[in-house]
């Protein structure tokens, strides 16, 4: 998927969970879900469920552990989409 379009989609997905508006506004590939967006760690599983629904993919436990930033999420989504 095209990079900017993917970032835009991820941005919509994480919006309900973020607790740092400024970091959210300037969200980029390098944004960290917990450190920058201050997403409650318990909500990370909800972000992943929403990613699964939006892209119609399934994310396994090992991938889940890695999915802590926009970049990591993009890599995993692209990999799963390619494998479809």
């Amino acid at each position: 998927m095209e990079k900017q379009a993917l970032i835009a989609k991820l941005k919509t997905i994480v919006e309900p969970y973020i607790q740092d508006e400024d970091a959210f506004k300037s969200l980029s590939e390098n944004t960290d879900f917990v450190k920058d967006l201050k997403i409650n760690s318990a909500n990370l599983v909800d972000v992943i469920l929403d990613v699964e629904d939006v892209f119609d993919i399934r994310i396994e436990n090992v991938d889940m552990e890695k999915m802590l930033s926009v970049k990591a999420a993009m890599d995993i989504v692209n990999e799963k989409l390619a494998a479809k």
Partner: protein
Amino acid sequence: MKHRVVITGMGVVAPNGVGLSEFTNAIKKGVSGITYHQNLKDLDFSCCIGGVPQVSEEKRLHYFTPLQLRGFNSSGILYGCIAGIDAWKDAGFPFDSESELDYNSGTIFGTGTSGIEKFREAIYKIDTKQVKRLGSTAVLQTMASGVSAFLGGMLGLGNQVTTNSSACTTGTEAIILGFDRIQSGKAKRMLVGSCSDDGPYIWGGFDAMRVMTYKHNETPKQGSRPMSATADGFVPGSGAGALVLESLESALERKATIYAEVLGGALNSGGQRGEGTMTAPNEEAVVGCIKKAIENSGISADAIDTINGHLTATSKDSLEIKNWTKALHRKGVDFPYINSLKGMVGHCLTAAGSIESVATVLQLKEQFIFPNINCEDVLPEISSLISEEKIPKKLVETKVTIAIKASFGFGDVNGCVIFKTYLA
């Protein structure tokens, strides 16, 4: 030193009124909150009526963040948080996620089952091998202490934060537990109360036991008939009630509005011995609990102006009246006024004790006795014990100084608490 305990804030989410002013107005007028529920009919329930508080989507957003409402499906926590936050604000404290942590304030907020709809959702997912799809919200909404955990975080409570559970005694028990904690100096303020989920998954078991009325599906507002000769079972209800209990010193220091004083109370159990069973009360224990509450409050039974009974509209109502006459040594015209809120809201189960206590305290604050509805035909076994004029069917505006409230629950458990008007 024993601290005196007063009530400085209240909140209520009841089938006939959400918020103190709406609720006060409703109980004075005898407004029923019982309605027909097609979903119960569709599920082949015998009793298709019940009391469900009306909370709009918009109102939820005044209490919960959009994030908290994602995947939210727990009516009890919804009602409990609204009542609890309202009580806290009514007492003059902030509702602000940035408010300072207060180690002198805690909560004891009871429930029976938490988030039963959420639990159902989770079970369906698990059974279809979708455990991974539960998300983060299942535990928080289905743990029994969900309501106190939500409230603790919303209000920044740093003292004890817990949930009690003792069937239909729960709400009254929470008040007494919070009272004890302040009286002994372990806390300055305790938000106490209780809530109950609504709907078929909570009420189904009672329907199966045939303890709910099935004769009023066409006349829901007449369905809940405490003390009536034509009562034939309770009507299920739900909601939440909350009270801020505070040491008198703290309340005076803050110049808080004082609704009433909690003089004392008692909790006991009949141990399912004698005539006591899992579902029937041991009479000696009921009488003992009421007597102990009077003793602990340092008053005489003659000083009691009004009783708010448990009185569910089952065959146990006349037994309850008999127990009151024994415990107070008062009968006939000498008996205090007595009323049951259940005629208007049904039996709100674990929320009953707290919603009914809020109603009782409002009577002291505003000097009235709310009417009993649906008991124009008082049960002869009751009118042979107490004068009918003591069972008001219309609003009575009169001097009320001391009110006693009792709740009894499955498991043969009893709770009784005594409130008094506070004069500065």
